[in-house]
């Protein structure tokens, strides 16, 4: 985990805090929240937003921050912004104006864009990519000796990119030097031009074989020598069995602040205002998710689907991973979702007839007018169908990336000969997933909570018992950075105000013919219900967020709800705004080939789960 508090900032006395302001400066919108001490508890009390002002004619991010905080002040009846546009600080306990601390995340200006490199694509380069993604970066390309490109193609590609920084890994400590140096030799003459141009020296972080460091230093030269600013940190893959991403991630954050942020308009002021280091938005989301998963010993997945990209974060067995699906999104990238998934896959979630040519033009028109919203029920059904496919693809990419370390030699017994598992297996296990958190417009702003829950289950296909939740107003970035200053306040607000618990997906793993018995369920306690589901069925039992019930499920042989095929499972749990979504559609989820049957079935599911009246 990478929490930084600049050394220059005075230590914060947590006991006297009462008003905490937090902003997330996005590419288009700056979102502000106020967190207040209410009695003995920390609560998120107000929110406001204003357009981000990084670009001309303003070219100063703090204008948008001031605007958003001014609005928060009006809503809260407390002044936070002085006449000169700066943030007011509370001078004493009785001061009627000002805040105690101000913190921020940022993804404005396209966020942090990096090129990563390693010797072997599946090993050190994959570790470098994990380090960069975990720090909140967008990885523009991954260079590796075995990336199937010829050296000159690699150099050409690096020349075309305009990264904010480059991370080079390669070789275990004491291992290969030659290939690591070779990679450095290809990056240096390519002289990638940074986005900020001019005098900006491109930061290069070397986190590879420590024995190669002197030669890498010779290749990139000292500061002011060859246009690079090289820093050397601990090897992120010191042995094949070990990944040590912390030092590289921390250095990425430092370079982000020292170089990237310092060159963005107005960020010098924002950095001065802020009481904690400004974090890249996805980095902050990752931090809060890791803290929650660690505290509650959960396996958790969080998805944030935006207009251009979809981020997936996961923590399984304490291991954190993040992926960014760069062109899977609901407005700027909606056309790409349809192209990658195929229109037939999108339309399989639609229960009414739609004209494909007309839809294709509509998709493109949404792409070029990204701010429009669905007006009709039919347009919403289609948009949510696209969302299902974007989420499905993003999750598949995440599973492929979040693997055990590749290249690790394993001792095998005779029994293992028949097992398929080995190094490089996905650590994302749908049966072990405890909590699935949704955020991003199409999920957070769906008119009905049932729609959000159904989209999550259809696209992620969780197995067994999985709690479903949504981030009410996407405040996980704010809480992530707050956690670096005041973890308790961040956790309290996360529990009370951030997450809206939708309920539980209770789904059987296995395949069976429609109509064949799948599992029986019995709910007792605050709510009583029971039923038996055949393959292809779904059911909803309404259990509210404060209602506690005992759920017993008894699967037919060949179906697994957590304890193995055919074995019953008993769980005590609290419900949610939607309730318990029983799912006997099987995994992997299959839909009928026949068009009329498919539409009828999709409509039946939507009705059973309360999506359709």
């Amino acid at each position: 985990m990478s929490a930084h508090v600049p050394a220059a900032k005075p230590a914060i006395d947590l006991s006297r805090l009462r008003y905490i302001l937090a902003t997330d400066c996005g590419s288009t919108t700056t979102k502000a929240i106020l967190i207040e001490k209410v009695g003995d508890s920390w609560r998120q009390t107000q929110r406001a937003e204003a357009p981000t002002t990084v670009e001309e004619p303003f070219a100063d991010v703090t204008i948008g921050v001031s605007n958003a905080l001014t609005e928060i002040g009006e809503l809260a009846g407390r002044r936070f912004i002085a006449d000169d546009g700066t943030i007011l600080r509370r001078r004493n306990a009785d001061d009627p104006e000002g805040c105690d601390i101000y913190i921020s995340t940022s993804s404005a200006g396209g966020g942090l864009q990096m090129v990563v490199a390693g010797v072997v694509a599946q090993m050190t380069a994959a570790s470098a990519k994990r380090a960069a993604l975990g720090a909140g970066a967008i990885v523009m390309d991954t260079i590796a000796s075995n990336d199937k490109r010829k050296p000159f193609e690699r150099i050409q590609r690096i020349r075309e990119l305009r990264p904010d920084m480059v991370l080079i890994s390669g070789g275990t400590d004491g291992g290969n030097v030659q290939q690591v140096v070779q990679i450095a030799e290809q990056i240096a003459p390519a002289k990638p031009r940074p986005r900020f141009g001019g005098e900006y020296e491109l930061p290069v972080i070397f986190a590879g074989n420590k024995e190669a460091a002197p030669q890498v230093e010779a290749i990139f030269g000292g500061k002011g020598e060859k246009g690079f600013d090289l820093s050397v940190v601990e090897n992120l893959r010191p042995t094949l069995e070990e990944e040590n991403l912390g030092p590289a991630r921390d250095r990425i954050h430092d370079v982000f602040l020292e170089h990237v942020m310092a060159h963005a308009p107005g960020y010098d002021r924002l950095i001065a205002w802020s009481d904690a280091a400004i974090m890249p938005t996805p980095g902050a989301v990752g931090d809060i998710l890791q803290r929650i998963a660690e505290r509650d010993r959960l396996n958790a997945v969080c998805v944030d689907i935006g207009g251009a990209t979809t981020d997936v974060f996961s923590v399984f067995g304490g291991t954190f991973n993040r992926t960014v699906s760069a062109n899977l999104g609901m407005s700027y990238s909606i056309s790409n979702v349809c192209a990658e998934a195929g229109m037939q896959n999108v339309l399989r979630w639609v229960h009414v007839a739609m004209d494909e040519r007309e839809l294709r033009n509509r998709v493109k028109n949404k792409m070029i007018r990204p701010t429009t919203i669905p007006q009709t029920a039919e347009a919403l059904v289609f948009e949510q169908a696209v969302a299902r496919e974007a989420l499905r693809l993003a999750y598949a990419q995440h599973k492929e990336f979040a693997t055990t370390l590749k290249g690790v030699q394993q001792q095998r017994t005779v029994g293992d000969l028949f097992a398929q598992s080995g190094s490089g297996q996905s650590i994302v296990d749908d049966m072990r997933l405890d909590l699935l958190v949704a955020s991003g417009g199409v999920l957070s702003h769906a008119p009905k909570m049932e729609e959000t829950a159904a989209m999550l289950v259809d696209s992620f296909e969780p197995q067994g018992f999985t709690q479903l939740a949504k981030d009410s107003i996407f405040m996980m970035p704010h809480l992530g950075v707050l956690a670096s200053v005041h973890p308790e306040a961040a956790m309290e607000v996360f529990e009370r105000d951030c997450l809206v618990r939708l309920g539980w997906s209770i789904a059987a793993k296995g395949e069976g013919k429609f109509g064949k018995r799948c599992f029986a369920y019995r709910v007792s306690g605050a709510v009583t219900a029971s039923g038996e589901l055949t393959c292809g069925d779904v059911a909803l039992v309404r259990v509210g967020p404060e209602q506690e019930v005992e759920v017993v499920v008894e699967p037919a042989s060949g179906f697994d709800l957590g304890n193995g095929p055919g074995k019953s499972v008993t769980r005590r749990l609290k419900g949610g705004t939607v309730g318990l979504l029983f799912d006997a559609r099987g995994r992997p989820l299959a839909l009928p080939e026949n068009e009329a049957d498919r539409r009828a079935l999709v409509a039946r599911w939507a009705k059973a789960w309360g999506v359709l009246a």
Partner: protein
Amino acid sequence: MAKAYTPGLKVSAQTTFRARRQLPVSGEVLVAVGARVQARDVIARTFIEGDVTPVPLASLLSVPASDVPSLLLVKKGDHVATGDVIARTKGIFGFGKKELASPAAGVVESVSATTGQMMLRGAPIPVEVKAYVDGTIVEVIPHEGAVVETEAVFVQGILGIGGETVGPLRVAVSTPSARLEAKDIRADMKGAVVVGGARITAEAVRAARDAGVAAIVSGGIDDADLRDVLGYDLGVAITGTEKIGITIVMTEGFGDIAMAARTFAILKSYEGREASVNGATQIRAGVMRPEIVIARRAGDAVPAQGARPEEGALEIGTQVRLIRDPYFGILGTVVALPTEPAVLGSGSKARVLEVELEADGARAGGPSAARRVTVPRANIELIET
């Protein structure tokens, strides 16, 4: 077919247009402030470093990397031509010597005793920046480029394909609602910027490309036709680098949609004049739209300045375009601005406004024949008058 429609893009018969023309790296600026330039004039020039060819000497000669420096016949800084012998092994007792010919021409930039790799830097690549529009140099950016200014007709499109080009305007159809088809493209349109009306077909694009047309400007295009023209499905609206032999600018959107009457009238009135067109589009933060720029001349008619709505101002009586189904492309007038959010047909709550549709707009095929409709504020754009 839907009624003519233009999104909230700039369509101006007279504006001061400034083009900031910069080299990608430092170089020589060839113009001074006050100079008159033509669109095709080169105003700045530089060379970027040539491509690098890595030569894996150690593996090609089958020797350890550390032996490579002693086998070289060239040194750092030397120029070599393709086929020049650059290294030779010693052989055994002088026999079995192995020679290595350079796979490329260039300057020896480095040789590594760790990797046994030589880097050959190719000849510098010239880069030129042209003026793009006829105008006057108003600012020189030392070593980088210059700013060209001109009084111009300026039309922004919604999406373009391909990069910058220049050519005389040729209007190929008689009305803004006429489809641009292959038969409308004639051999004498070579090098021209061809203006269509409504949807342009894939066949028309192919015919235009075959005829050597520089650019096509039209109202809309079908998604399927664009896919056909590009050879792939456009996933995100970031364009400008396509190499399809022609630049395309759509002024309105996807589907069978007519060019806004005013845009068509302006372009038609400048038929025969040189137009600078750039298809580069970026619909992300830092939005960039495709454009058509025509430098005005002293004798050009001064357009009447109609009252224009203040940017972003929306009030009763404002003319708007509806930009989302079920009313996509229809024009109307704002008749009510309720302050409270309303529940839409989708079930979402959003701020809305009421619009009275233009007569033929109502016929164009909304779900209801009602002339007065309620739409989310996010789904309209203002019309410049």
